[in-house]
């Protein structure tokens, strides 16, 4: 089995130096803008060429595009981005979760030429099954992606199957204005986090906003604790089924979590993340552990600028805080697309800074994957995310992106929910998780 090996390898190297290099220095800005400009002219040239050789008909022919960006803001960003490709693109938008759930049927039926997906276990699985097209020659024409992103786009057979667009971090988010007013400081250790949470309770705030009605947001909390307590490599092995779920390491994660539950917003299982984000927006809660998309619930401008974040604090000094979670979103191509030339041309365009810049304009809660993306227009939050991801030692994707989807959906999702309902039976829970894992990972 080469899968776990390559997973650990690619994830271990997943520090985009581009992102690190971009930093906040003036030189970084200049470089970014310059290369962005170059990319723009290059891609417009490409587009012009495509339009020119109408004889081949690839560019004038329609390319179909399956999009999971069903929310109003990103949907418009994608429409703008695709409109600027110079190709005739027919977009088929499906509700975000529905798209993900039906991906098997979608890919085995009649999928669109190009469609949205994300890096991780599932991308490599589809590649191994021959359901998606080889994009190695597209990658040959791409510039601006670091080796780490190329690795993240590579299947088990060493070919590329994925073109990254954006990346966003998971961290603890808070409102600067509230923290300044109350004099809070970002905690560096778990003890400091608990002290801060107690202070917040005294000040009449819910310390940590929390929601898990849909079952996946709490996986983020599990991942953060696991990365801090057991480290990155353990996360990778656990997700690959190589570590036991009833091990003392996993029990410690749940035990630590139980200690923090009194500071979490109550009745999380009846709340969706949008509602929890609203409580942060309304200054009813002090912080929220979520992906940077939490910013989508904050009105643009003053409110969004008020949002800041810090890395989940250190729990074990030997492990540190070097490991973070930052999922990558991007595109894949179906196997044997109807308009292969057009699809590849579109993907080549989607891998340019020009495409990223348009997509980023509408959604300031992600950052571009390409080092050539224009960082000058980034918000303070985005700039901080660039720095945060750039300085990470290792980057995980997310529980349900790093492991088998059947295990994530039918075992971990109800498992974590039952932990939140009854946090006291960690032994029983971990034993059940392990025995279910064995029944699934045998195939």
């Amino acid at each position: 089995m080469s899968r776990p090996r390559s997973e650990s390898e690619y994830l271990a190297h997943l520090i985009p130096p581009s992102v690190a290099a971009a930093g906040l220095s003036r030189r970084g800005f200049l470089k970014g803008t310059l290369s962005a400009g170059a990319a723009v002219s290059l891609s417009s040239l490409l587009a012009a060429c495509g339009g020119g050789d109408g004889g081949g008909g690839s560019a004038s022919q329609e390319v179909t595009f399956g999009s999971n960006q069903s929310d109003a803001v990103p949907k418009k960003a994608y429409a703008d981005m695709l409109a600027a490709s110079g190709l005739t693109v027919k977009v088929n938008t499906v509700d975000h979760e529905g798209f993900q759930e039906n991906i098997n049927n979608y890919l085995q039926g009649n999928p669109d030429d190009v469609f949205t997906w994300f890096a991780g276990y599932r991308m490599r699985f589809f590649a191994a099954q021959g359901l998606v097209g080889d994009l190695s020659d597209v990658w040959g024409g791409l510039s601006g992606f670091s080796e780490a992103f190329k690795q993240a786009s590579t299947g088990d057979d060493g070919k590329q199957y994925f073109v990254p667009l954006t990346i966003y971090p998971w961290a603890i988010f808070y409102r600067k204005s509230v923290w300044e007013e109350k004099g809070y400081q970002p905690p560096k250790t778990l003890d400091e986090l608990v002290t801060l949470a107690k202070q917040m309770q005294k000040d009449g705030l819910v310390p940590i906003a929390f929601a898990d009605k849909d079952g996946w947001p709490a996986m983020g909390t599990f991942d953060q604790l696991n990365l801090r307590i057991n480290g990155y490599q353990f996360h990778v092995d656990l997700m690959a089924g190589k570590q036991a779920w009833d091990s003392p390491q996993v029990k410690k994660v749940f035990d630590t979590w139980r200690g923090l539950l009194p500071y979490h917003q109550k009745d999380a299982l009846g709340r969706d993340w949008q509602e929890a984000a609203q409580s942060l927006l309304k200054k009813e809660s002090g912080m929220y552990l979520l992906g940077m998309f939490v910013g989508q619930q904050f009105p643009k401008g003053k409110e969004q600028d008020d949002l800041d974040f810090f890395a989940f604090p250190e729990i074990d000094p030997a492990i540190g805080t070097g490991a973070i979670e930052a999922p990558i979103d991007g595109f894949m191509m179906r196997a044997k697309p109807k308009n292969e030339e057009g699809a590849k041309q579109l993907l080549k365009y989607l891998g340019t800074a020009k495409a990223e810049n348009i997509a980023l304009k509408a959604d300031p809660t992600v950052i571009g994957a390409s080092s050539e993306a224009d960082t000058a227009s980034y918000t303070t939050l985005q700039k901080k995310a660039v720095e945060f991801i750039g300085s990470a030692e290792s980057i995980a994707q997310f529980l349900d992106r790093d492991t088998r989807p059947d295990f994530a959906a039918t075992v971990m999702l109800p498992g974590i929910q039952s932990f939140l309902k009854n946090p006291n039976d960690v032994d029983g829970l971990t034993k059940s998780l392990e025995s279910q894992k064995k029944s699934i990972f045998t195939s």
Partner: protein
Amino acid sequence: MSDLPTVPTAPAEAAAPRRRGGRVRVTGTDRIFLALMVIIPTVMVVGWVWLPAIASVVLSFARWSGVGGLDTIQWIGTENYKNVFTNYPPFAPALRHNVIWLVFLFVLPTLFGIFLAVLLDRELRGTRFYQTAFFLPVVLSLALIGFIWQLIYSRDQGLLNAVLGTQVDWYGDSRVNLWAVLVAAGWKHAGYIMLLYLAGLKGVDPSLREAATVDGAGQVRTFFSVVLPVMRPINIIVIVVTVIESLRAFDIVWVINKGTNGLELISTLVTANVVGEASRIGFGSALATIMLVISLVFITIFLSTVMRGERR
């Protein structure tokens, strides 16, 4: 059974004096017509009901990710069933919830729907209005029903908590959410039963009631001794509809939280395992087969009751 179904090709008067088992003249066109009448429904039932059902049963003994050809199927015997019963924590609650669902629908919404029908049948003022009001939930789309009840049940912004001044997490607390959902489902079910029953009541010959009144029976006695027995076919339909509704209960729960956290039903587990990204086809098929067996028990009981009744 006779070799050919008896078809009233001749006028009713002519058919009436004929003895049972008598011959009916069948022309060539009739034969073709009859053959088509038999073949088309058979093909449809076999193709769309029996083949998928049998495929589910067969697949329940396999392990298959649903991706790739049929040659990637691994046969693993009864392991899926073993896992369902011993190694799948959501299964036991799901089974329990289906039973609760059935009992609840019978005891409250069905009886309430019948009660409403009887009241509305008495031509109160504004009967039409009430009829429409009670039937409205049946017409509404499920997404809308989910939305309406979300407004009522939301923990932080909901109507119910605002009125009662409580902080109950109606959808999230697994001790209450099943009952909260049952109220929502019952709201819909009562209207449905009401309409069915009302239609039946309208068909009851008024002279029967008059006769009962003349004989000195009161309102209650008339209903239980005269109307109810006459309504037997409708009663059976109501029972069948209720059983079916509770076995296929799925959508409202799926809209709320995909059937997790206290709202597990066998149907949602099947969907989560087969239709979703998970693709545990074999495991999901085992769940579906269990559901099929449970349904068969009810169908057998129902059919045997009906047939016994008809023979009488």
